[in-house]
């Protein structure tokens, strides 16, 4: 596009913006203020992790769940950790095997990002679904929802974690908007979770963590600001995966498998896909 055309378009869009009518803004101030009384925003020093977590995690059934002794969903006690640049960070190990969730400020972004326009997120070796099934020691599940039965690409990594993992990658398509960083619309990771060491670490800042049930088994729904995932690499060290700053993520347990589904999709949509996996 020529500079001239660009200038015209730029001008015309600004002109349009100035003449646009948005729907009238409702009086949010009153509604918001009415809801603030529920719990004052106390200073960081006054906060107890449990109270803060209760607020952030929105877990009405949390205690009941723990008491029920559902092994996979029992939560370890909250641990207050201090890390540089983090006034307040609370780590909590959720009961999903092979997953640790840390709630705190996300790490500063690194300078390098992968090029977009790729389906290969550095997940491992690209193989066919059949080949992936031969290579790992667990039954590979696939969603049974429409076009999702056929992943755009399948990756297998036999080294990490122990027992291997399989990633199903779906190109962005109608109903599956592209991730903010790649052309991927949906990513489903599955591996046989070990109680320790964790394979996935997840750091979420503003995001919400909600407990959910997927086909009768426990899971967690992460929404909010991008979540930062780190994976344990073959050498045993955690590596940050900048490419997978997730929009929304569902992590859940299916028998001995731990599954993670990530995409810019809504919670009901994610649950529907997760429930359909066979």
């Amino acid at each position: 596009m020529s500079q001239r055309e660009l200038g015209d378009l730029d001008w015309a869009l600004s002109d349009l913006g100035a003449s646009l009518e948005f729907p009238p803004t409702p009086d949010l101030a009153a509604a918001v203020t009415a809801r603030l009384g529920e719990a004052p925003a106390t200073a960081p020093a006054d906060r107890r992790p449990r109270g803060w977590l209760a607020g952030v995690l929105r877990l009405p059934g949390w205690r009941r769940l723990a008491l029920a002794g559902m092994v996979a969903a029992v939560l370890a006690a909250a641990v207050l950790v201090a890390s540089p640049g983090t006034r307040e960070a609370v780590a909590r190990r959720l009961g999903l095997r092979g997953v640790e969730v840390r709630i705190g400020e996300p790490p500063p972004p690194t300078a390098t990002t992968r090029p977009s326009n790729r389906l290969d997120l550095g997940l491992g070796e690209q193989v066919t679904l059949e080949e992936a099934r031969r290579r790992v020691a667990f039954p590979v599940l696939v969603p049974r929802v429409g076009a999702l039965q056929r992943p755009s690409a399948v990756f297998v990594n036999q080294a990490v974690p122990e027992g291997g993992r399989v990633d199903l990658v779906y190109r962005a398509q109608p109903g599956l908007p592209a991730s903010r960083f790649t052309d991927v619309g949906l990513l489903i990771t599955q591996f046989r979770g070990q109680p320790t060491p964790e394979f996935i670490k997840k750091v979420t800042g503003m995001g919400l963590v909600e407990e959910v049930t997927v086909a009768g088994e426990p899971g967690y729904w992460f929404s909010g600001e991008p979540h930062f995932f780190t994976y344990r690499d073959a050498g045993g060290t955690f590596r940050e995966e900048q490419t997978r700053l997730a929009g929304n993520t569902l992590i859940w347990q299916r028998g001995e498998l731990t599954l993670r589904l990530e995409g810019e999709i809504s919670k009901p949509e994610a649950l529907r896909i997760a429930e359909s996996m066979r």
Partner: protein
Amino acid sequence: MGETESVEGRPLDDQELVEQARGGDARAYEALVRRYQDLAFRTAYVIAGRTADAEDAAQEGFVKAWYALSRFRTGAPFRPWLLAIVANEARNRRRTGRRQDDLALRVAEDRPSGDAAPSPEAAALAIEQRRLLLAAVGRLGEADRQVITCRYFLELSEAEMASALGCRPGTVKSRLSRALERLRVVLAEQGGGPLRASKLRGGER
């Protein structure tokens, strides 16, 4: 205004209000909400596409931001931080398969449409051109439409656009230029040439 003004009678800036709100001052926070409710609601509307969802998202975003204030970095700009939270709430309310026409922005007119009173030809042309341009924006994919809307209709800064769109600040420019490129293609397909913006301005440059 009371506590939301300083002793000199000058309105408190964002940082001062944020500091007070962090101390538990709900009135200071209310002042922030009033200051940014238009921006929050419109941003949410652009993303969620429905007024009810936008209202819900903006309200929830403000409430969540209040509870997250202790984690707000002192000295950081409040607007992009708030927008990130609100935009995310809006994204979570976005329904899959949403139709473009849910987002019903309208080009303002001086007189209601259908009014028989003659208006100057130039004004009518300008309104028509704006409508065509708005229609073209509406035909873009969601990502393109949002980046253009954030830039031109909400007049967000690059940092704010990154927050609202959930992308890195460094990618905002390239996303915008790609979106403009595609908008130009849509305009060409729509007919009427590349916009004839110069006519809107009342003549060739």
